[in-house]
């Protein structure tokens, strides 16, 4: 897996900077609906822990980036909560399937709520902004994690996802659910 290199990082950081501009907003209801359906499908597949079907929604050279900083900077200079290429996403899934990932034994029950979907043009790609509320029941308690998300879509698949947790620079209790 060699696709993560300097130009990949440059492109990613540039992509998620200053993209929510009114003139780039997509007003076409059909396009917005398609994007929303993709995000809702992603949420359901994750809630159902259908990880293979979920990863199939992503392009080959994909990335999931969950910044740890209040203001996301350059992931080459700072750790993130997640900075996963496809291989590390596959590692995450592998780990959960060993049955020995004690932080997810038994697995959490989740319900992800995807709302506030807005779509912006980014060249021949689409950038989708949404809010995410992840309700998680685990070990006798239900809690919620909230975030705003950015999905970069190419050819109907997810090429890059950035999840900006409200609590990103705070300590998280058992952050082991696949985001």
């Amino acid at each position, binding site marked *: *897996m060699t*696709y*993560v290199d300097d130009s990949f990082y440059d492109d990613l950081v540039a992509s998620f900077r200053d993209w929510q501009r009114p003139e780039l907003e997509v007003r076409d209801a059909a396009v917005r609906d398609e994007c929303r359906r993709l995000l809702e499908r992603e949420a359901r597949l994750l809630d159902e822990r259908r990880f293979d079907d979920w990863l199939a929604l992503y392009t080959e050279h994909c990335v999931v980036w969950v910044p740890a900083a209040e203001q996301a900077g350059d992931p080459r200079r700072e*750790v993130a909560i997640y900075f996963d290429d496809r*291989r590390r996403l596959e590692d995450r899934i*592998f780990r959960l399937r060993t049955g020995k990932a004690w*932080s997810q034994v038994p697995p959490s029950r989740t319900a992800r709520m995807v709302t506030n979907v807005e779509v912006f043009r980014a060249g021949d790609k689409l950038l989708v902004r949404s809010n995410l509320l992840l309700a998680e029941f685990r*070990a006798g308690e239900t809690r919620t994690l909230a975030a705003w998300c950015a999905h970069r879509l190419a050819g109907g698949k997810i090429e890059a996802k950035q999840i900006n947790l409200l609590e990103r620079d705070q300590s998280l*209790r*058992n952050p082991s659910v696949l985001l």
Partner: protein
Amino acid sequence: MSTSIFFEHLVHEDRVHRSIYTDPMIFDLEMTHIFGGVWCYVAHESQIAQPDDYLTTKLGLRPLIVLRDSNGKLRALFNRCTHRGARVCREARGNARTFQCPYHGWTYFNSGKLRGVPWPEGYACDFTDGKYNLAQVLRVESYRGFIFGTLNADAPPLAEYLGAAKKPIDEWLERNPGARVVVSEANRLRFKGNWKLAYDNAADGYHVVFSHRSLLETENRHAADPNKGMSFYMGKPDEAPMYVQYFGHGHHFKDKRPNVERRPGALWEIEGVQPGMESYERLIRERLGDRASRALDLASSEPVNINIFPNLSILGNHIQVFQPLAVDETESVWYATAIVDEANELGGTADAVNAIRMRTQESFPNFGEVDDAANFEEIQKGLAACEDEWVYMHRGLGIPGRVQRLADGTLKAPATDEVFMREHMKEWLRLMTTRPNIQIAR
């Protein structure tokens, strides 16, 4: 308050009483006797590199502003307006010469000195006597960038307190160019369990193959030869060259370096796969040729755990800090570090090294620590069974010749031995039954 007899019942040679993890009264006493009574890590100098830089944190439960004042002096102010007690500073970090309380506008210089209050003519008192300056931590000292504070007027100088732990800290620093690291962002975790559960685990070699089985399997799934990460715990860890060492004052050390060949590149070879490693490795080898291995090792995890009682663990490339929130809640913050190569020892590859080093540092918090934290929470739940009183720490105890006392007075034992926690519990007992000479400065 006479607590000696009460405490002596709680700590024995082979076991401790469950209540040291569950009793809120004991936790309250720890917030003075331990967190304040001894040197506690508060920040790294790279986080407050310039004069007037500050960050907010805690010493035990006390809110602090740790800063470099306008004259460059390191201070840890109590983030508590002298007037009515509100926190004066609500930001995580920044740069400021003064702090103004949002309640009544009392203003302080970052030295802690009161600058002024609104309408002072309404007060009969004279504000020049220093009585209303911000309180601050009595003693603040830095050891090579690691900033500690204590409220104990009788505490020895920091360097003396660190004692034999200084040597591995020096080695951990000196493998980096300029013997420097810069704190980057952090992976921040929280668990519903007592802080000592994390410190008990800090040099624990016994749990690795069980707790971190999923990590070991994941790391090794790409490799033909399963030698990645902490694989050396599989097989017979007590017969391996790695060891655990107790330094005194509650500090201990897990040294896994003897398991790894002493040559450049050996650490890199056992590092698991991480995003971007191939591209940046190619770049580094193109630029440095034969000298690439040293740079690649800097992107890899240094196989040590240097634990400084009560709240610091220096491990891999991380600075891990434990913050007690309540008797049954603790933060475990994994600060990542980056290298800074001012003398260009690495031929322009420092950025490439850091690009890998960030990804390697995300690995254990994501794939390992979460399982430890889950186990700590399960301990806290299990300990609710109050008739089942004892928590056992007797692995290795009573086996002749297993624990060696070295010439410098430190103790050395095989990797899965629990001597280190028996010793830190003795020190805990001593501290809990000794009244510390707590003072604040103003």
